[in-house]
């Protein structure tokens, strides 16, 4: 029993080493396939983060009349904060609103002079509302139609945001759906590549397999070293992919964060936290596919 296991492992290692070019070719094919899968994974993750970043940036400004009663404003603020869809509400007082407006138009004397001409603060208090998700804006918009403070609201810049929110939601759904379709296509391509790579590798060994049969080797004894070799090939492939993915992510991460802020990054940390799961799952899936392919490819050549 132990002698057989020892021999199977020894033959697998010999096979791997003495056919080193075939091993290199097989591993490179497996690595390329896994890399495509990981690129897709990174893209999906990045898309999610970009979407979250954009959604996080959307806010609705609720402008109150300049004569609005502060108690009504506070009431609206409290009310909005109770809504589960609302992530955050900030109040900008009338005075602050004027300061901010002046800061924003500091380079535009015409605008500043027209504000001075009015002679008083034309702004009322403003509430800046952030939603948890883009789809929640509809609920928030309708909630602001509450008769208790509806009349105090001068302007809600909903109309613009509504179309933006709508577009983002549509794009988000499309990207996610597209991602799923792309993932399925890539998965099928990956399966076909692995299956054919293994078949070619076994085909190259067909003469040897028939010789082994002729000198009295049982099917199991022929099959086992090939299966052990697939473990080696799969393990090396996944290790190489890990050695490529982590440094690459570390390299692109700063550029990614530059565009979307550090909060939107976290690709490396995502792979670090879930590395065991991500690459463990890839190893198991790869092993399963290569082993099944090997067993199927061998079956044909074992009929001697």
């Amino acid at each position, binding site marked *: 029993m132990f002698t057989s296991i020892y021999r199977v492992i020894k033959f697998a290692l*010999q096979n791997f080493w003495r056919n080193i070019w075939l091993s290199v070719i097989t591993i490179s094919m497996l690595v390329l396939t896994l890399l495509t899968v990981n690129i897709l994974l990174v893209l999906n993750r990045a898309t999610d983060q970009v979407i979250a970043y954009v959604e996080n940036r959307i806010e609705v400004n609720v402008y109150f009349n300049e004569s609005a009663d502060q108690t009504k404003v506070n009431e609206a603020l409290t009310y909005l904060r109770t809504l589960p869809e609302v992530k955050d509400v900030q109040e900008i007082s009338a005075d602050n609103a004027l300061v901010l407006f002046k800061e924003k138009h500091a380079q535009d004397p015409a605008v500043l002079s027209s504000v001075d001409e009015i002679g008083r603060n034309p702004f009322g208090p403003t509430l800046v509302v952030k939603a948890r998700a883009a789809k929640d804006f509809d609920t928030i918009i309708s909630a602001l139609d509450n008769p208790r403070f509806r009349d105090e609201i001068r302007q809600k810049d909903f109309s613009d945001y509504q179309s933006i929110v709508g577009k983002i939601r549509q794009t988000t759904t499309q990207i996610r759906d597209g991602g799923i379709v792309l993932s399925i296509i890539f998965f099928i391509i990956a399966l076909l590549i692995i299956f054919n790579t293994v078949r070619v590798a076994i085909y190259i060994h067909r003469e040897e397999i028939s010789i082994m*049969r*002729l*000198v*009295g080797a*049982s099917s199991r004894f022929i099959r086992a070293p090939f299966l052990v070799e697939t473990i080696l090939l799969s393990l090396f492939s996944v290790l190489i992919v890990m050695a490529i993915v982590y440094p690459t992510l570390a390299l692109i991460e700063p550029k990614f964060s530059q565009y979307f802020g550090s909060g939107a990054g976290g690709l490396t940390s995502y792979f670090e936290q879930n590395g065991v799961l991500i690459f463990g799952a890839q190893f198991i899936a790869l092993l399963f596919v290569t082993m099944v392919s090997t067993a199927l490819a061998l079956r044909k050549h074992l009929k001697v």
Partner: protein
Amino acid sequence: MIHFKNVSKLYPPDVIGLDHVNLRVEHGEFISIVGQSGTGKSTLAKLLFAEERPTHGVIEIGGWDITKISNRDVPLLRRQIGVVFQDFKLLPKKTVYENIAFALQVAGIPSARVREVVPRVLAIVGLEDKVQRFPHQLSGGEQQRVAIGRALVHQPKILVADEPTGNLDTLNSRDILELLKKINEFGTTVVLVTHDREIVNRLKRRVITLEGGKITSDVEEGRYKL
């Protein structure tokens, strides 16, 4: 030892490999099976180590009916019959030593026994000094010696040699023939399939001639007559 009872082998659609062959080979005999290409010589050899199954008739080897041998039992049969081929059929990525040891290892023989048997066999075939060579580093004659060594490791009762000198020059052919005679002297039944006239005439042993899948002559101490 070997008994063919009315054995026929047909290949679809209508090619006759062997046609109602009756043959009995006794223990320790050295027989040559001769005939032109396509007369059924190799078919007869393949039936012996179950690479082919007969269409009709019964084949017995040492009292074991292998006519309908199962795939599971084929490895057991092949560990009892040594086989040598024209194209040597060595494992290209294994050394001389490993090629010979492989036939023992597949049978689950303990490593200590392998280390004991392989050097003995290497001495018989005269390759003690080339154990670490790979097949592509050997001459044709040397490769055939490795193949014969591999066929001998189980101390088989029967050695089937299918055109063993087909790829060798005269000098190497003679060497291989001497080796086969030596093996026969140790008590192994040798079935030599060949169309090499010189070898058959030199042997002066029993010669069976095949024509069109039938045995047309079976002569003790025969000569190649085709």
